[in-house]
């Protein structure tokens, strides 16, 4: 082994160690904060292991009204927006997989939309939602619609490959048997793409679940989880904030660990903030 390859091996080891520490240590500290009393979290020098254990922060998530309703609102907004985005995304992806004009229109709309900064949309959108009467609504319906619009590109890109892979002979056979185009779409294309539809639903759900900017501006008092976590963090409620943060991670981490490499392509294709 010469010096150069030994240096490479050392660099490789250092990088691996760094990656594991950067991924695991912060999560450990978060978990520790969520089960220790707040006084202990503010101790100096900081404690690296919990000295006292408590479940009070997790219990507060389910007992404090503000926290519980934020969890429910986040779930609702994410579910509704994922359903709308996947439906509209499936329509767009289907058309894009069948016609080059549709493809051009779809791609230019999606990339044009991507250039818009959140803040340039959210402030005027808030004013519009207020005039329609769904600004900061307790159900979060305004935010759900916005999240659906942001998530359509993700859904469409996830579903495009699935629709492009369906053999046209099948559609032709159905056509000859007298099925209308909409019926072909509903009873043949959608069921055949069901694995990708599930992926699209999950990705859109997580996109909404994690989204912070629009949620902060559109739901000013009836908050979803990310803005609520922001206020708890900034105003020093360490314990509940840590418990909330830990709970927030569950959906996303489950997906990545379970689906892992299978998601690679779609994660990078749909990533945006």
């Amino acid at each position: 082994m010469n010096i150069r390859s030994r240096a490479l091996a050392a660099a490789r080891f250092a990088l691996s160690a760094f990656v594991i520490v950067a991924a695991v240590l912060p999560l450990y500290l978060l978990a520790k904060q969520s089960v220790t009393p707040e006084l202990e979290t503010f101790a100096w020098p900081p404690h690296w292991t919990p000295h006292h254990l408590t479940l009070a922060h997790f219990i507060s998530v389910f007992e404090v009204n503000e926290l519980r309703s934020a969890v429910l609102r986040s779930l609702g907004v994410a579910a509704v927006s994922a359903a709308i985005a996947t439906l509209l995304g499936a329509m767009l992806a289907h058309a894009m997989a069948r016609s080059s004009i549709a493809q051009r229109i779809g791609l230019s709309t999606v990339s044009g939309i991507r250039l818009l900064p959140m803040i340039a949309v959210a402030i005027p959108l808030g004013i519009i939602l207020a005039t329609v009467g769904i600004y900061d609504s307790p159900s979060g319906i305004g935010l759900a619609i916005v999240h659906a619009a942001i998530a359509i590109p993700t859904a469409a890109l996830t579903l495009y490959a699935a629709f492009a892979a369906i053999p046209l002979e099948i559609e032709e056979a159905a056509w000859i048997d007298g099925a209308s185009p909409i019926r072909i779409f509903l009873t043949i294309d959608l069921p055949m793409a069901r694995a990708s539809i599930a992926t699209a639903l999950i990705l859109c759900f997580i996109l909404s679940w994690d989204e912070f900017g629009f949620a902060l501006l559109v739901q000013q008092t009836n908050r979803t989880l990310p803005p609520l976590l922001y206020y708890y963090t900034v105003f020093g409620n360490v314990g509940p904030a840590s418990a909330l943060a830990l709970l927030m991670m569950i959906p996303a981490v489950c997906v990545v660990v379970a689906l892992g490499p299978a998601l690679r392509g779609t994660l990078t294709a749909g990533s945006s903030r």
Partner: protein
Amino acid sequence: MRLCGIRSRFTTVNAASKRLRTVFVVVPCIFMIAMLLLPALNGLLLSFDHHGPSLANYRILFDDSMFWRALGNNLLVPFGSVIVEFVLGLALALMLTARRSRSALIETAAILPFAIPEIVILTLARYIFLPRGYLNGALAMAGMHALPWLSPRSPLATFTVILVDAWHVTPVVMLMLMAGLQTIPDELYEAARLDGAGTFATFWFVTIPMLMPAIVGALILRGIDALRIFSTVLVLTGPEGVPVLSTYSYSLWDDAQKPHEAMAASMILALMVTMIGVGGLLAARRFSRDDGARA
């Protein structure tokens, strides 16, 4: 981006399916435009409205020193963060695609920061970098001085913001570069080895040129996203600590109750993103055409 797989041999193209296809394109696109583009255009109009049409909102911005700080940071922070992401992402991608050191555990650990919701990463980062946070605790244990990582207006705070921003999205850059690395045929590496090229020569003359399309794509996409930095600054330092255009606009709207000035600031950001985004895309197209001509 170009998607392939269009099949023109669809023999049953007829009025009914054409009509359906039109509906399928128009409905989602109108929905996106109505929810995102039209509000932004409305904001553009309102940004020129100061008790009647005028440029007063922009003039107010240009007289505000905070605006110029925000503008400067909005160039500096994304630039720094893209560089950090790129260097780390490339190192990780090279390590994880090398045959000898492929490891599912390290790959999962490397992707994990992206799977964690952004706001959770930021919450964590705040507890780590606070004056009496874990990092200073670790420094104290090692017998070193504590550092004011988040102190407002300091270059160190800018550095911390860059680092935390890069932490969350490095996995995306890594995945894009890994996808690019996997398309490089093994024969090229073999030929380089037979010609006696060492590790670094192979890297410089084979890997980097072949990876160029993936690198350009990753830099453009990440660059556009990085310009829109908002939550990192808001959570770590507050809107005044290391102001960027998004947080500046947000505090004009939320704290100062000046919606029209806020829209003016956000329009300047939108203009910046559009210019850099379109410029990057044109450069990339030119690049790929040159590449095609050479091949």
